[in-house]
């Protein structure tokens, strides 16, 4: 499977409380809160970290099988992309 990279929408503001992210989207002021796994993905969505590395971290930290973790991550990424919070690219974002 080709590698993918996640990037947070720059028009979000966010904070992490006790390992759980609270995200505010500028477009419509909607509030999203993530659980610990979602927060790990969110924090890793820096445009540079491969999705496979995030799946690996989830397997290591939450004791989940790789196949299950990958399926859950893709579903989560799809949901956040539809909400305009994340974008998925085939190559790393260039660092400005």
């Amino acid at each position, binding site marked *: 499977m080709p590698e993918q990279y996640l990037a947070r929408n720059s028009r*979000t*503001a966010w*904070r992490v*409380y006790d390992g759980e992210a609270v995200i505010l989207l*500028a477009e419509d*002021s909607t*509030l999203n809160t993530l659980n610990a796994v979602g927060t790990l993905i969110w924090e890793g969505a820096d445009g540079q970290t491969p999705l496979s590395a995030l799946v690996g971290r989830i397997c290591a930290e939450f004791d989940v099988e790789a196949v299950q973790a990958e399926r859950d991550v893709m579903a989560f990424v799809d949901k956040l992309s539809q909400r305009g919070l994340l974008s998925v690219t085939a190559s790393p974002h260039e660092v400005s």
Partner: protein
Amino acid sequence: MDELSLAIAGLRATVVTQHRDILDVVRDRYKGFLSPGTADWRIEVDVRRAAGQGAHDDVRVSRDAAPGRFVIERADFAGTVALPVRRASVTFVDANEYSIDSFLRILYSLALVEARGLIVHAASLIRNGRAHLFCGRSGSGKTTLAQLSTDATLLSDELSIVRVSDGWPRCHGTPFWGELARAGDDRSASLGGIYFLHHGSRHAVQAVTPRQAVERLLPNVLFFARDADLTARVLQIAADLIEAVPSFDLSFRLDPGFWEVIDRA
């Protein structure tokens, strides 16, 4: 041109207009908040029948091409707010109190961010020298709670202002009223606690975590600009506020006994 200055939460604005009826409305509506002196903001006001024509019934705040400049439109007014130079201009369809008050609420929601302040859908009261902020949307009991608090000083029964300076929040009286139709006192006090309102069969307070508090507070913040920088600053102010004072869920029934559970919390 005539002018009149008012100060809300320490932020002074001068209204400049050639329409005496505008100044009459401002003088009467904000009589507890009139304040001569050097203004932070200058608001130029005009009245023209066609103002806001074609605009949506709901307020629209959009970013202009210039940095820090916003266009504000509603059916009954159209204006601009330039944050870097602290100037606003607005044209109303007519000189009515409702339109002027709506524009001022939006203007202050933008201007206060720079002053590390937020307008919150909340009643606020000073009791025993400390301010208490009671957050909730329409129907949550803000006005009822204010009416029940006969031994407290009213800051607002609808829209409260909190400013965070040197890490410590102060709650300020506002003229932005709700069903009570009475302005708060032009006073301020250190904020002692934030309470998220719930109707209940008994009085009870329960501490909430900082994450829960931020989740509950943000939907109650009056904020219109779809702007990434301002949004980040609003979240920062809200987070600083939550970190500085304890937050609680407050269930209350229709008697003043809720103050006893607050005092014990």
